[in-house]
């Protein structure tokens, strides 16, 4: 995949543990356009390996001079978010992917309810610009632990006024999903991004109330979990790749110079799907993409987040 070359032009701490980075094109020109909800994958060349993480674009899609992303320092960081927080300085050069949108606003929706939990606010930052521009009927519900964890709150308040509804958990303001989802007019779409528990609660509440699936949108990027090391055999190229405990299969293939496909790197989009030919162990599926039946068949794997408990696994690549 061809990369975009950017220079970090500003870094700002926006909330506890959350840093805000501004990128400009390295050649000083315009960056490619994107739509609300898009993300880019940032390559982070640490000394022993390259991390690649997906981050939502926060800036207004109308602004082609800069891209902005927010990175939360993950407590159990495998290294990506720590690299961004500690190594990247103003003036650093980075490679990023072209913007990809896996979380667009429905064009046929009559009303849009955006629900963010904590750092899950990020994909909505560009979406609200788009919704404001088109004059759509929408509201943003933002749930956070306490105000010092609520990134972008001032900016959002200014931009949205009463269309921003905050749920500050330190003030015991809980987001009542049942109440929220049972009173929406026909033609409403709901979008959620946040911790897994919140996403699951919203999806099941909507389902129980009879919301059609096509009206319920979610974005949840998973980080590849840590596991046990194993060997990956690639049938077509005849290569053999060692997958360490703390790297994903996709990262291990990339480090070995294999050109494997990906878009979200978070088990959501389906782009990285590969065929499993053989293994002497069991596959540990972590993605949101494959159906339960597909997972059960053991014939497919999403190497960006899934791995195997085995000594070897053979893929058709």
């Amino acid at each position, binding site marked *: 995949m061809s990369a975009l070359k950017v220079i970090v032009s500003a870094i700002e701490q926006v909330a506890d543990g959350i840093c805000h980075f501004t990128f400009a094109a390295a050649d000083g020109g315009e960056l490619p356009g994107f739509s609300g909800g898009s993300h880019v994958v940032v390559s982070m060349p640490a000394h022993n390996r390259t991390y690649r993480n997906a981050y939502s674009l926060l800036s207004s899609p109308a602004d082609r001079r800069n891209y902005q992303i927010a990175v939360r320092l993950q407590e159990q960081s495998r290294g990506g978010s720590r690299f961004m927080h500690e190594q990247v300085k103003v003036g650093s050069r980075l490679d990023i992917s072209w913007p990809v949108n896996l979380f667009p606003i429905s064009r046929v929706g009559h009303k849009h309810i955006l629900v963010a939990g904590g750092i899950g606010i990020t994909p909505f930052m560009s979406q609200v610009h788009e919704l404001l521009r088109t004059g759509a009927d929408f509201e943003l519900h933002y749930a956070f632990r306490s105000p010092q964890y609520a990134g972008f709150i001032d900016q959002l308040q200014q931009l949205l006024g009463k269309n921003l509804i905050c749920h500050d958990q330190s003030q015991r303001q809980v987001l009542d999903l049942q109440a929220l989802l049972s009173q*929406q007019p026909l*033609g409403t779409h709901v979008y959620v991004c946040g911790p897994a528990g919140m996403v699951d609660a919203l999806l099941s509440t909507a389902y*129980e109330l*009879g919301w059609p699936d*096509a*009206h319920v949108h979610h974005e949840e990027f998973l980080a590849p979990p840590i596991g046990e090391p194993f060997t990956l055999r690639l049938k077509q190229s005849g290569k053999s790749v060692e997958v360490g405990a703390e790297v994903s299969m996709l990262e291990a293939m990339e480090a070995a110079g294999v050109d494997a496909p990906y878009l979200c790197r978070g088990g959501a989009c389906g782009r990285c799907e590969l065929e499993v030919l053989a293994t002497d162990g069991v596959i540990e599926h972590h993605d949101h993409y494959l159906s339960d039946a597909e997972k059960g068949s053991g014939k497919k794997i999403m190497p960006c987040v899934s791995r195997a408990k085995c000594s070897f696994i053979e893929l058709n690549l």
Partner: protein
Amino acid sequence: MQHGYWIRSKPVYHSLSWQHRAQAHVLVANGEAGRSIVRLLHQRLPDQPITVLYHPTQEADYSKSLVSLAGENLHVFKRESELWHRFEQILQQSVMGTRLYAAGNEYFLWQATTLAASHGVLSGDVMREQASSLARSVYCVHCKTISHRVTTNIAICTGCQRHLLVRDHFSRRLGAYMGLMIDAEEPGNVPEAEEVYP
């Protein structure tokens, strides 16, 4: 007549069944399809409120059976336009989780779908059952008139009187099949019509 192969624009219908995860249920039906609603009301009913809008026609009137099953949840309309007016009002006041069911001839089904779509309901989320008659509404591509209740493969356009070949190409927006002049090349050479959509 075209048969034996699948044309993408030709819709597929199912028989209605209750969607038990819901906040409310709204059913619209006309004529013959009243029977589908009767059948549905005989099944285990969902817990949420049900509203039935029905337009009896000359061919079939199931109002009596429907009244006995649906009571005051049933609204019978003398004219179809009144039914659509009421449906529109209900759509305006409905919340997400309201399930929509339509039973009727094809034209009726797609009118319901189009109206629902204007309130942001996706076509796939309206459940549709085609009434027993397969009669087609045919859109004349020459004069743009829609002729209803066509049961034959060749029909005379009610607008321009041309002989039309009834094709399988279906417009969901119009709720009708395309009709093309059959004797354009050789005027007067019209094959015998067959009743293929009884």
